[in-house]
């Protein structure tokens, strides 16, 4: 009852307002109750669907030349007819001859209303929503690369087998994926994708290659297969790290690589990390000095790996024993290699340092850390002197917790 009243209260008002608004243009002689206003003509029904869609999705000519309207975020025309059939609409009716036969046996079928399907409209909207905009498929955290859904760092599987050579135990990882341009005489600026990837069997065999192609997928495939054809064998120490520390450089990129004990992990640039992973190196520290150009890092690192010497070769070259001392073994000297000839050395001979020898007399630049601005301030000094007596508190607490003496 109340609803009816409300409606009746609104209706006259609305009519009055329209009549007032339109009063200047249309003949006001007509009584307001008979006037049903509607604008049946708009660009929606004047233009064909293609033209309307072009208005939404098109890119200007200048933009097209620059490569706009491609890639992610591209608007696509939706097929609005999808999910709809002729004869089935908002009001589900039986239309003889359209969606039902005219005669059923001897009986004539009449136009008839049926119960409304409430989900129909919702379903159509859902279908349209899923159609147009491109959705990113969610990546499994294990499959992710260095950053987001970007290719660098991601695995693209083993190279395709060539004839009988199959790369079963190999894994390929993308190191670089970028767009490069070249100028062509007739086509002008031509864009291609350049992919640098590294493949390896996690057991000392690895290769890397760069490949370019107009499509990302082809570039990935090309670089992967090319890397499989350029394998390099590298001797690993205890199947987990490099033979010895080394210095290596390519262009302006200088890398100092250090052999590390078991359990250290890979502490280095992410590209070196990825290479080590496909090679089977588990413990290593590398410091890059100079340029961090990715292709140069990869090339320098591979050159360094290839230039490593075996302990026997070093002992032969220097005529000295190579001894390894482990802290965990209380400094027990273990002979790793001995020279073939026993050359008598006098006390005066200077024995070179092993690390100095392997790094080729290079030294890592150790930059001084700049202390924070507050270090010598009065407040900080007070804080430090107040805090001094609590310096061992954490350990004591921990011990108490462990031994539960409380």
């Amino acid at each position, binding site marked *: 009852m109340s609803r009816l009243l409300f409606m009746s209260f609104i209706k006259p008002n609305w009519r009055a307002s329209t009549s007032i608004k339109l009063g200047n243009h249309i003949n006001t002689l007509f009584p307001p109750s008979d006037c049903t206003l509607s604008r049946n003509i708009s660009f929606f029904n004047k233009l064909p669907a293609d033209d309307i869609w072009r208005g939404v999705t098109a890119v200007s000519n200048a933009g097209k030349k620059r490569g706009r309207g491609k890639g992610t975020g591209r608007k696509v025309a939706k097929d609005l007819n999808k999910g709809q059939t002729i004869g089935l609409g908002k009001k589900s009716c039986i239309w003889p001859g359209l969606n039902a036969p005219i005669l059923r046996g001897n009986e004539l079928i009449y136009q008839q209303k049926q119960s409304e399907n409430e989900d129909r409209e919702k379903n159509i909207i859902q279908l349209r929503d899923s159609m147009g905009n491109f959705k990113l498929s969610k990546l499994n955290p294990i499959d992710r690369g260095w950053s987001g859904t970007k290719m660098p760092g991601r695995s693209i599987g083993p190279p395709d087998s060539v004839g009988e050579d199959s790369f079963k135990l190999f894994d390929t990882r993308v190191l670089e994926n970028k767009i490069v341009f070249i100028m062509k005489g007739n086509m002008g600026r031509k864009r291609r994708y350049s992919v640098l990837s590294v493949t390896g069997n996690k057991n000392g065999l690895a290769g890397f290659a760069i490949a370019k192609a107009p499509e990302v997928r082809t570039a990935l495939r090309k670089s992967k297969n090319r890397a499989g054809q350029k394998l390099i064998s590298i001797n690993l120490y205890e199947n987990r790290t490099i033979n010895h520390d080394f210095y290596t450089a390519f262009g302006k990129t200088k890398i100092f690589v250090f052999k590390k*004990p078991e359990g250290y992990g890979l502490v280095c640039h992410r590209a070196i990390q990825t290479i080590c992973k496909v090679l089977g190196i588990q413990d290593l520290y590398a410091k890059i000095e100079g340029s961090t150009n990715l292709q140069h890092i990869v090339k320098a690192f591979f050159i360094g790996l290839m230039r490593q010497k075996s302990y026997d070769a070093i002992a032969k070259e220097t005529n000295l024993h190579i001894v390894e001392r482990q*802290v965990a*073994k209380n400094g027990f*000297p273990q002979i790793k290699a001995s020279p073939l000839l026993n050359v008598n050395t006098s006390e005066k001979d200077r024995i070179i340092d092993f690390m100095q020898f392997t790094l080729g007399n290079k030294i890592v630049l150790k930059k001084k850390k700049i202390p924070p601005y507050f270090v010598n301030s009065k407040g900080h000094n007070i804080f430090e002197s107040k805090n001094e007596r609590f310096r061992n508190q954490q350990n004591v607490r921990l011990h108490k917790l462990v031994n539960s003496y409380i």
Partner: protein
Amino acid sequence: MLILRQLRKLNGQQRLQLGVEQTRRSMADAAQKNASFQYDKDPQPLFTDAETQRLLQSMTQLQLEKVFRKRTVPDNSTETKFMTTAQLEKEFLQTIEKAKKLLQMPPVVQIKQDTEHIISKDPALKDFADTKYVFTDITFGLRNSERKIVVRDADGTLAYAPLETRKRMNQLYFPLEGRRSYTPRMFTHDDLLQRCLDEHKYEFVLDRLTVQYEPYEAEFHNFSAKVFAHLNESKEFDLLRSTRHFGPMAFFYAWHRCIDDLLYDMIRRDYLHNAVELISLSYKIHQVPVDYKPILSQLEALKPTPAQRALAELLSCLKKPAENAIEHEIQTAIGKTEQDFAADEISLKFIEQYIGSKHALKKVQLELAVQTLKEVNLEKLQLYQGLKKAHGVQAS
């Protein structure tokens, strides 16, 4: 069914009774042992005696891979170095010295009794405070044992601090690394210690004991006796070989006349000269009128000391294959030299003599072990001689 069930019930009761009896017996045994496992007189003069030390060191052996085995440390880095042959030889000597230091035995001494020593009684100072006052001389360079620590009681008496207070004050001002101010839980809770022992972590327990307690403390004696008793039951003596605790352990068994299990283990592992040393030690401690000295000197002439042997092992990797390579190869293949065979013969005689005497308790077991060893040795000797003949190596 009913009969079966009754039978089972009966069995269960029997087993229960048996179990109770067994535990009672074992408890009684343990109590007896604990009562007897004290040094009735001061063992220190016998233990620190040069000959005893030599015997114990020889029994301990020096297996380099065990002394320098990989331990769990925060820093597991390695250092690679270039070395000349001369440097390496020097390094090996230092390594042996280091190993000797690592194998230094904790001394076996009498339990120190606490004695009250009053300096002065000042009744005038009575009730000067509610608590005792401890005065510690923290002069730099003093030994912990000679540091003066005195206590002023609330009733005014000034006295030298008891041992417990001394230890606590010393730990407070000059903390020993690894020693805790509070007793570690494994020494306060019997079940925790028992768990360690059941897992055969003898070395760990003994190491911790050595850090936490002084050798003259009663706890040190009690716990080490417990460990050695458990070890004698489990017979895992090899766990302590080449550690600093093997000597005190052998001394303990020799003192308490229960060397037979250790002896059996030594014979089984073909450490015959060690067996002779153990028997000699036992004779020495209990002043048995058997002349063991000539045999020991004979063996000494034939067998190198553990340190010499370890050094030879280290130096062997420096040597190039020489002309008598085949003989060396035969020796390494069989694991024994001619001298070893000679030493074995002397030792076996002495051991058999011991087994035949009234001192041996597990005669049958020991005899069997000796017999099998003899057979194996004979086979080895034949093989050794045959190989030598086949390769045309002159008998030296």
